[in-house]
């Protein structure tokens, strides 16, 4: 017996967004760190902060924390991101 059955997925194609252009250099740039403040992130981001400033010549590293580590970042931080040259996020548990 043949069955005609229906697709259970949402079938919506997620619109792909391109990657942001790569920075040619870190020198003199402002880099944002958006952390979920989980324990495992702390040492990692501190190390990265030092590395970016001391070895890559980053001018400023701005730290911001999500209010809820399982929810999207707040609107105020999103607005602030527009003023940064690059962002590091999504790492750590």
């Amino acid at each position, binding site marked *: *017996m*043949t*069955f*005609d*059955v*229906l*697709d*259970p*997925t*949402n*079938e*919506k194609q997620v619109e792909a967004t391109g990657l942001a252009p790569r920075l040619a250099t870190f020198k003199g740039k402002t880099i944002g760190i958006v952390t979920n403040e989980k*324990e495992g992130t702390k040492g990692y981001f501190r190390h990265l902060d030092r590395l970016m400033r001391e070895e890559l010549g980053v001018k400023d590293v701005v730290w911001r924390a999500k209010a*809820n*580590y*399982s*929810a*999207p970042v707040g609107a105020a931080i999103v607005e602030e991101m527009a003023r940064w040259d690059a962002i590091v996020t999504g790492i750590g*548990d």
Partner: protein
Amino acid sequence: MTVQRPLASRRHRADDIGAVQELYHSKGWTDGLPIVPPTEAAVRACLDWAVMDPDQLVGIEPVRELAITAEKLAINAVMAGCLPMHFPVVVAAWQAMLKDEFLLHGISSSTGGCAVLVVLNGPIRLEIGASGTFNALGNSDRATSVIGRSIRLALINLMDVRPGSIDRSTLGHPGKFSYCVAEDEEDMTWEPLSVVRGVPEGLSAVTVFAAMAPRQVMNEWSTDPKDILETFAAEMRANQLHYSIYGGNYTIVIPKQLRDHLQAAGWTKRTIAEFLHERARVRRGEWANVGKGAVVRDRADKVFPALGSPDDLLVVAAGGPAGGFGAVIAPWMGSKTRAVTVAIGACVDCEPPKPATPAIN
């Protein structure tokens, strides 16, 4: 003659029932168990029962803005084994899950690995044969089994909550196959959970809760309500120390044997909640006793209640008639998610009725 709106979903053809199973498994559309083929007739029967058009929007997942339509929920409900009469419950559960405070994306993607517990209240339990007695948190009956399963299948297929994809659970638990319980309203003097949470008496309702696995407790050696509830409090404290110290909604399930002692002594769900609010709390310093001394820091004396207020406790009367058991079901992660209760068949986004315009004389 009414004109049926067409179903929008893509069709697939399979030669026989075995081919249907292999098709769905191979595409990652199942939970690993066999499914009921979602034919157009079966899906339409669900929609007709709930008086819903296929493209009716049940809600939008707030983080990734995924539209959840009646048609897609019905397909997944059929796959889970739902009959048409189960479908309004599934829809209501999704309406509740899509409320911001439930934090659906967070609870379904977290390494914490919780499941969505669905609690049923009201007359619909009897109409669909949902049982709140024997084996209440297990495979107690067809209705709760398939309703709970439909939640998981729809998460998998509509939100890509697949292990290793959006679902990043480290362990998960068996409730992720199906986690649904009906309250035993016919054998309790207490208010149903839905009424406690504001739904008018006599209406059917669902409560959804981002829940860890049930932790079974036992106290067959006292009839004193305080003794019985101390056992529940101890389990809640244990969860705070062994899992997460942060307070939030907790569910406790109280089967008949212990419930009878509490009810005979005049305890209500409210007095139970007030008692546990006082008794289920730990000092941060106690973390040092369970291997977590490294994060006590300078806050050893800070007290963490399991319940932010008595209102945070969900007391569910369910379970078989014999056995001095109960269960504590902890929240996924403190108060980051909140339990949500909605009436079945009610519009969750309707504006409240406008006050009558005063007459101008």
